């Protein structure tokens, strides 16, 4: 019988997750309400959401997607359109100013639905998911895997980046869309420089993390991990591998899309940089450094790396990418499971105080 590592005990895992989010939720109470700090922490929340999506898709689903930025960017544009139309007046000022400077005389049809905030939100969330389902079907029904998926998602991301850049009358091109007012929904205004934005961001992150964790502990979660470890064997056992992969890929898209929506509420801005290849690969770095096989590890990686970048100070900004690159190389070379793997190893020396409970131990020993 293998030694029981506390790291794999579900009760301990849930305790850590709940305590961690609980502590994080209290930050505005303890640290005061400096609006710029809270805005920055809310941004870290979105980075955490993105790392979560990579952890689900890559760490547990075994699909290395370099195109999480597609969902993030699409949703961000949808959200920006919704917020922009909240500012526009249907009678006196129906067309956003960047469209006027691009010589549009009427609101484009694709922008019409964004008059209604609820429709806009559904589109911002739904379009990326539909796209990921179709894109996933295209790839996984052909049984593509590994590097091919990475390259195809990269190419698709590049294609959308070009579109966002080029469709200037619809997306404001290089300049991007900056809605003038804060997001309002159901009579509430979400001030991007307040405790509220922090709680919105953290709330979405916490809800998505716990839901993903529940999903991974279900039968579905076991199957996708089986597919990750040996997709041929899972296929021989009768599972429809492509179906599970498409669902994981689309769920990853949904999580990244929600991240994109929260992001635009926080920064009130979207530009093609959201679809940059560099950004999407950076998300993968966060998850890899923190530990892609652990939701908490990936989120921690995202927050830790970004916080480190902010706090190293200006004199080290120039060498930051050298540090990041080196850390990443070292992690890939020596710690394939990231810092979470290191933690898993360290805690295996601590005796498990919890009584054994076979049904509650997740099957991650590998």
């Amino acid at each position, binding site marked *: 019988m293998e030694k029981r590592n506390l790291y794999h005990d579900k009760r301990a895992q849930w305790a850590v997750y709940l305590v961690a989010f609980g502590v994080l939720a209290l930050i505005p109470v303890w640290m005061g309400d400096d609006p710029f700090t809270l805005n920055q922490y809310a941004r870290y929340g979105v980075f955490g959401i993105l790392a979560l999506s990579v952890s689900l898709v890559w760490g547990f689903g075994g699909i290395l997607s370099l195109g999480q930025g597609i969902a993030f960017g699409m949703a961000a544009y949808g959200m920006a359109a919704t917020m922009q139309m909240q500012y526009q007046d249907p009678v006196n000022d129906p067309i956003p100013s960047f469209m006027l400077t691009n010589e549009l005389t009427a609101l484009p049809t694709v922008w019409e639905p964004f008059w209604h905030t609820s429709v806009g939100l559904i589109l911002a969330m739904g379009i990326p998911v539909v796209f990921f389902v179709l894109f996933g079907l295209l790839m996984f029904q052909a049984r593509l895997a590994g590097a091919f998926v990475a390259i195809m998602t990269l*190419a698709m991301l590049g294609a959308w980046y070009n579109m966002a850049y*080029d469709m200037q009358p619809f997306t404001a091109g290089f300049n991007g869309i900056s809605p003038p007012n804060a997001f309002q929904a159901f009579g509430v205004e979400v001030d991007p420089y307040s405790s509220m934005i922090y709680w919105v961001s953290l709330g979405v992150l916490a809800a998505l993390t716990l839901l993903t964790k529940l999903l991974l502990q279900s039968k579905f979660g076991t199957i996708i991990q089986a597919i990750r470890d040996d997709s041929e064997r899972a296929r021989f056992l009768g599972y429809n591998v492509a179906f599970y992969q498409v669902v994981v890929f689309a769920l990853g898209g949904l999580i990244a899309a929600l991240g994109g929506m929260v992001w635009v509420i926080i920064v009130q801005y979207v530009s093609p940089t959201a679809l940059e290849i560099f950004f999407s690969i950076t998300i993968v770095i966060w998850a890899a450094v923190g530990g892609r096989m652990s939701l908490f590890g990936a989120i921690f990686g995202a927050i830790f790396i970004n916080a480190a970048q902010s706090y190293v100070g200006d004199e080290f900004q120039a060498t930051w990418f050298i540090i990041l*690159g*080196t850390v*990443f190389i070292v992690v890939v070379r020596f710690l394939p499971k990231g810092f979470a793997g290191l933690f898993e190893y360290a805690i295996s020396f601590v005796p498990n105080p919890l009584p054994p409970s076979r049904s509650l131990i997740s099957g991650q020993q590998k």
Partner: protein
Amino acid sequence: MSVHDFWTPFALEPFINALIIGLSLASIWLVAALGLTIIYGTMGVINMAHGEFIMLGAYITWILQYFLGFPWLLCLPISFVVVGFIGWLVERGLIRHLYERPLDTLLATWGVSLVFIQSIRLIFGGEPQYIDTPEWLKSVIEIGFVYIPSIRIFIFGLALGLVGLTWLLLYKSNFGVQVRAVMQNREMAASFGINSSKVYGLTFAYGAGLAGISGAMFSGLKTIFPDMGLGYVVEAFLVVVTGGGELFGSLATAGIMGEMFSIFSYFTNDTFARFVLFVLIVIFLRFRPQGIFTPSMARR
């Protein structure tokens, strides 16, 4: 934006010009993809730092010219040797530890590329640099209504020359036999006395060297800057993957992609053409993941 602005109607002379631009573009993509083809095709390594090898080649050319006054043509072979050596170091120090984990090489080489970009930016600054080419390459050749800068013809010729050289090396030399043996079955080749570790190192160095020489070539065409590599690496990957990681696959794909891009951008514009091309490649790979010529492939 009306449909009329977006869609350029067909006219023979500009269209033929577009076809020639397509050939030139194809030769650039081919050169950029050549080193990657060798590395991916033989070793199965996804080298994300390839664009940065191109960038290093361009910067070595600039250093040689700016500080030492070397003529441009002499810089080409030197870039090949220096970047090849850097590539060899990267293979020895990092990549050879990751052969069992191909996806991890993709990530690790991305880390390498971050380090290269930022090091160059720290040392030489982020501003674009210019490189002087010989006078005879600055002229424009005029045939009827067709105008071609002679440097593009030079690059086109050099691209074909490099493909020929690589073909000779891979298919007509003793080293090539060893490379192809290791490529087919590493253990079997090793048991026949081939030092597979050395073959991998040299192959990677040769691929990196090709990237270096292509960087030196591009420096004569465009300005150089620390993150210029990213502009080539995606296209280069698509050429390699669509070509199935084979020399002639890459040759054909680069030609087809260059012409398709040029024709699409003639009728519409550059960015839309790139969008259509990328989407077409994704769909193509869905039906032929093994590449354009390769008959079949073991699914990984």
